[in-house]
């Protein structure tokens, strides 16, 4: 189990999280089916996957809240299950459905954690950081869903954690509040902390994460930087115009390229940049009406939807370009 320590040479950054062959069984259900990944210290790692994929299960195993069935897990060099008490002083956690004492105010909640962790954070400063200062004296049961999440984030930061585990911290937040949380995550990274983030918003992962992993039915189906995943799994860059189906037929006859029609838009794949002029020339030469030219490339979300869809359809029924 410790073998990798001897084999790996000392790199510029050490791993904050190391996971090898992690398995979690609930009876017959294999919620996590043997996954491996590692998160270098000081980076943002985003864990993506559809509902029930195993994100929360994995996150809670890393936090020491659930016991793993098998596999090796190290967080800050500690076993989360057996060294939970030591680990919990060094990590901050906001659970997926964060709840707290109903009648306690935001300020009192932070003072409570401050006393438990023996730190000296200023509640006002911390709440200002998550844009919740105006609710400093509001009781928990009067906060909105998004405000509760913000308080959860503030509490996760009271002990000045080395790793922050954020399980869907922006779900249910308005676009402005979401951007506020993004700013907090960026500043956490700027302070050299490691962030483990699960989310259903793929643009969020694309914007914030150094590395992402997509988990589905307990298996990691893609991992790497967002750009790597798109390059490996996305379709090539395309030129798109609005036009009639006859335009597609014309282009197929005159260009040696795959052409697709979708929602009244005709798109042609680019092999390399010099193709663009040739394709536009052919479109103009067709004499057919066309409009609203754009180039498009797959986002992480396109790749995610396709990968998960492929897995669910048995990986056989691939979208074939016409």
């Amino acid at each position, binding site marked *: 189990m410790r073998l990798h320590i001897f084999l790996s040479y000392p790199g510029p950054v050490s791993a904050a999280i190391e996971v090898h062959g992690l398995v979690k069984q609930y009876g017959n259900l294999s919620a996590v089916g043997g996954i491996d990944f590692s998160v270098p210290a000081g980076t943002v790692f985003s864990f993506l996957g559809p509902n029930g994929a195993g994100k929360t299960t994995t996150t809670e195993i890393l*936090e020491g809240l659930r*016991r793993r069935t098998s596999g090796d897990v190290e967080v800050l060099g500690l076993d989360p299950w057996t060294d*939970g008490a030591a680990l919990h002083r060094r*990590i901050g956690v906001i659970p997926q459905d964060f*709840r707290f004492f109903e*009648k306690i105010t935001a300020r*009192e909640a932070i003072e409570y954690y401050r*006393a*438990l*962790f023996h730190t000296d954070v200023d509640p006002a400063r911390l709440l200002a950081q998550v844009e919740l200062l105006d609710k400093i004296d509001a009781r928990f049961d009067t906060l909105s869903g998004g405000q509760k999440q913000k308080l959860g984030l503030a509490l996760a930061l009271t002990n000045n954690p080395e790793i922050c585990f954020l399980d869907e911290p922006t779900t249910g937040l308005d676009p402005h509040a979401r951007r506020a949380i993004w700013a907090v995550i960026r500043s956490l990274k700027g302070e050299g902390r490691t962030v483990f983030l699960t989310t259903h918003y793929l643009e969020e992962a694309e914007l914030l994460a150094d590395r992402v992993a997509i988990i589905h039915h307990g298996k990691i189906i893609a991992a790497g930087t967002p750009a790597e995943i798109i390059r490996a799994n996305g379709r090539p860059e395309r030129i798109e115009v609005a036009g009639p189906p006859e335009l597609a037929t014309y282009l197929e006859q005159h260009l040696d390229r795959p052409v697709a029609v979708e929602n009244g838009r005709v798109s042609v794949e680019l092999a390399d940049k010099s193709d663009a002029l040739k394709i536009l020339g052919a479109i103009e030469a067709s004499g057919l009406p066309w409009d609203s030219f754009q180039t498009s490339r797959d986002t992480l979300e396109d790749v995610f939807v396709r990968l998960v869809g492929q897995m669910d359809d048995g990986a056989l029924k691939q979208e074939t370009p016409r």
Partner: protein
Amino acid sequence: MNFRHVAADFRVVMRSYLRNPVALFFSLIFPIILIALFGLIFSATGSGPVTVEVLNLDHNSPVSREFLAALNNTSVVKVNVVSDTTVSPSNFASWLGKNDDPVGLIVPDGFAANYRNGTPTNLTVFTNPSDAASSGTVLGAVQGVANGFNLARACSGSVCAPVIGYTSENVGSQVYTYIDYLIPGLIGFSILTSPMFSMVDIASSYRKDGIFRELSLTPLTRAEWLLSRITWYVALTFVTAGIMIGAGVYLFSAHVALTLGLVPFLIVGPFFFVSLGMLAGTVAKTPESAALIGNIITFPMMFLSGTFFTVSSFPPYLQTFAHVLPLYYVIDGMNQVMLFANMSRALADLAVVLVAGLVVFALAVRLFKWRDE
């Protein structure tokens, strides 16, 4: 054990409680209601004279009037002579039945003459079988007065003073009424019920809401958490006991000894029941079964530990059962310090509760888990 953690958690518990109007109402008003209610119910019977409706058929003869006056002087009964124009001996029983307190006495015609002549004569006492207490009181009073009259008649002429007399005193060092016994019982009742019901509920709802999971991520330990709850319920018990004693003194002129000996029971009692409630809530898998287990533990103790009725008035097998209920020792101990000043028995009671409390506390801390396996 870090007492800063306990203090921090205690502040959260106290604030949560004080900001909950329903909980606050129950802990402050409920003790008064309990004392008032049970004080009224039990002082209505037992204390105060029983009214006896008397049908005097002896034409108000001096001897019959003397007899009734002597009966009235016992102060346990109050004689109320009814006119023989409204009722007759034949419908007296049914007339009594329509009264609220159907107890009656017929003084027969020729009572005075028969007394003078030494001819046996019979008084008729009507009692209500469903009200054993007042029936016994009236029968005893009539019998006592009749004995006095018989004795006086037998000794007429010669001097014969009664040989055996008695004076009446209550047990304990002072004069106690029912309410004085009720106060320790009802303090025990609230030491049992308020921690049991809320801890059983907290154990399952905190687990469901993820509060335990949240706390498990902090350095707060389970023992510290439980100790902070215990401290809160000890504080609450002091307030409740103060209110109950105050209400008893103010409403019913109770005489209770406010000794320092009460203090250990007000600490050890909640210590035991908070731990027991947590243990019950922990072994249960669902909130429903938690409530059920809580009720199964709570209800027998609520009635059979000397809360409303003294255990010594129970049939023997129920007394034996009462002696395995921890609340019995809490209430008995408080009775010993508040009423009988029997400190050695109070100490023995205290030792039982303390040992049981330590065992249950240790078990609760061992068995309850912050996190899922």
